[in-house]
């Protein structure tokens, strides 16, 4: 383990690019929203939607459960930050200081090696988007979400806000008032994308918010693996991420949605993700949550078609000062639908991990199956881990299984490994890596490596 830790270049998370900002708006008002909309040259209906959403944001209360969000003052957040660059299609065109950061994060390299397409967002705007020509020829669309509004208005009108309505909760209303950037993906019927598409989100400006919108449609019989990665440098000011992901998986289609998130420790991560799954289709959520000060993140699957299925492979690691409130929500709306969950959480140095599972089995969901497994590992006695399950079952022919385990690394385990020459930290590292392994192996290879690296950094206390 020692040798691996030494390989880590922690500087990449501390990189701050200065002098990259062209335009910046602070706070929230109808005028600011009108300005953003004008800047983006949006159609009228989009501006109307933004203003309606702003109304909801002002009317809705903070959630009365979960972590305390009262420290968030939207008037202090930079709600729109335009970097000094337009959307580029070749990497060379991206300005050096922005390119540098993505280079160090390995983004263009990954693209060459193993990706079908890449998008990179810097603060509020997408700075780079590229997709393999062979996919474009098959009708695959992968563009900046702002571009999609102009170029694919029919698809946007049909799907946008249809999975996640604008009044769902306070911070989704905020998202719709301020959304900027993100990705739009359409995979036509029967097309199999063999390599993953990846979007990378970087929030660079201090005290800023990022509100990207991701909309993915996987049409009948098609398959796609999508990866999103998130990071930000550490600042003292509070940053806010209120993104939104809307996914539509059509009949016989399959989508894998991977997220590896390493926001800095000044980030409030209030992200909303929903997937509508049709007959015989599946969504696989694979998610690693490492960073942020507070995360509230509960990807939802709505299983609308017969034989639809969803799986959740989740891991979160909360260190000092972090409160990671994650989980899932599933609605079983049709017969023979299936949910499989494997959640693992690790907490250390007073970190808090809460796992919420909310599974609803409707009357129509005959012979549905749910298998929930959640384990947590606490590395010391000051850290916390909670599991909160709320399940409603309205159908009798359901198979529901649930396993939970809460563990601490016992002194005996540490003593055993120390008697084999491991230092105490190395011993803990080995146990944690073993604990995380079933999740790590579900990530694409590069990301599994990245995850191990993040775990090592968490253990060493080198982030945040």
């Amino acid at each position, binding site marked *: 383990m*020692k040798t691996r830790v030494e390989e880590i270049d922690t500087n990449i998370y501390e990189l701050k690019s200065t002098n990259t900002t062209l335009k910046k708006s602070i706070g929230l008002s109808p005028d600011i929203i009108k300005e953003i909309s004008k800047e983006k040259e949006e159609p009228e209906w989009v501006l109307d939607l933004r203003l309606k959403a702003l109304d909801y944001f002002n009317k809705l209360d903070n959630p009365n459960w979960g972590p305390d969000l009262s420290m968030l003052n939207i008037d202090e957040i930079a709600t729109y930050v335009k970097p000094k660059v337009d959307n580029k299609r070749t990497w060379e065109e991206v300005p050096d200081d922005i390119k540098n950061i993505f280079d160090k994060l390995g983004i263009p390299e990954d693209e060459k090696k193993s990706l079908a397409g890449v998008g990179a967002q810097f603060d509020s705007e997408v700075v780079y988007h590229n997709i393999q020509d062979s996919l474009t020829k098959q009708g695959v669309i992968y563009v900046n979400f702002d571009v999609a509004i102009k170029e694919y208005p029919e698809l946007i009108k049909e799907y946008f806000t249809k999975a996640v309505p604008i009044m769902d909760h306070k911070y989704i209303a905020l998202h719709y008032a301020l959304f900027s950037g993100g990705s739009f993906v359409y995979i036509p019927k029967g097309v199999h994308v063999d390599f993953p598409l990846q979007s990378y989100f970087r929030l660079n400006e201090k005290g800023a918010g990022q509100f990207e919108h991701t909309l993915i449609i996987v049409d009948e019989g098609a398959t796609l693996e999508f990866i999103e990665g998130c990071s930000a440098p550490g600042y003292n000011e509070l940053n806010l991420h209120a993104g939104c992901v809307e996914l539509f998986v059509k009949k016989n289609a399959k989508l894998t949605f991977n997220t590896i998130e390493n926001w800095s420790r000044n980030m409030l991560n209030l992200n909303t993700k929903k997937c509508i799954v049709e007959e015989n289709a599946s969504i696989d959520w694979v998610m690693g949550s490492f960073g942020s000060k507070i995360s509230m993140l509960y990807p939802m699957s709505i299983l609308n078609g017969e034989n639809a299925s969803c799986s959740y492979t989740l891991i979160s690691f909360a260190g000092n000062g972090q409160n990671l409130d994650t989980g899932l929500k599933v609605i079983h709306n049709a017969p023979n639908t299936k949910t499989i969950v494997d959640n693992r959480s690790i907490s250390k140095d007073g970190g808090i991990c809460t796992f919420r599972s909310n599974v609803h089995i409707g009357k129509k969901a005959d012979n549905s199956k749910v298998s929930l497994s959640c384990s947590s590992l606490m590395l010391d006695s000051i850290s916390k881990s909670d599991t909160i399950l709320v399940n409603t079952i309205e159908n009798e022919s359901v198979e529901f299984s649930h396993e939970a385990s809460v563990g601490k690394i016992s002194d005996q385990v540490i003593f055993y490994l120390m008697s*084999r020459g*491991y230092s105490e930290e190395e011993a803990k590292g080995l146990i944690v890596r073993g604990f995380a392994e079933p999740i790590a192996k579900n990530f694409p290879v590069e990301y599994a490596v990245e995850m191990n690296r993040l775990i090592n950094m968490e253990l060493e206390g080198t982030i945040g």
Partner: protein
Amino acid sequence: MLQINNLYTIAEDDHNKHILNGLNLNINPGEIHVIMGPNGSGKSTLANTILNNKRYIKTEGNIIFDGDDITNLSTDKIAKKGIFMSFQTPIEIPGITVAHYMKSLKESMTGEKANIYKLSKEVEENMAKLNMDKSYNSREFNAGFSGGEKKKMEMLQLLMINPKLAILDETDSGLDVDAIKTVKEGIKAYKNDTNALLIITHSMKILDGLDVDKVHVLIDGKIVDEGDITLAEKIDKEGYKEYNHED
């Protein structure tokens, strides 16, 4: 090689009673020593105390190994100086394969990055000595292993580490005939003229055929009798009555 002088220990959670009560022990290179004693006599405490398990606190005396005072050295440093202890109940590490474990074990012990090719060859050779199949490599370390299989893993680590002194803490307890055979094969593969072995045991089974130098009888944290292998044979038949103990 190992010298224990007038050692007293108490348990971390019970300061009222000494578990080791002025214990003395001297082991030279090449020797095989056996500690026998009834339940609760302090046998396992002795092994744990040598490795400086935090559950036990030393109140008096010291432990010298290869001329250095290791009384208060941390467990990993004691291990790196060349003392190995085989556990009664080894731990399980789900998610970490045996191959991965062996690599990190080697790296922890040597402080250097392991050469994968050389390492896997070494693991295979040692597995062969213990009649273990290569397929163990891809199993998760001790997860779901039988008691016998876990003891095999202990012996495999003994051979991989190749320490100067190996302490076998009731490695033979609860094992069937085949598993005891494996442990003996492990001992045979390990033992040479320069290294030493301290066997803590209840029974004779594991000693059969070993060239034992000294047998110590431990009662109430103190060595009350010493002799050659015939002492072990006598205890095996008669128990500890002679030492005013029922067990």
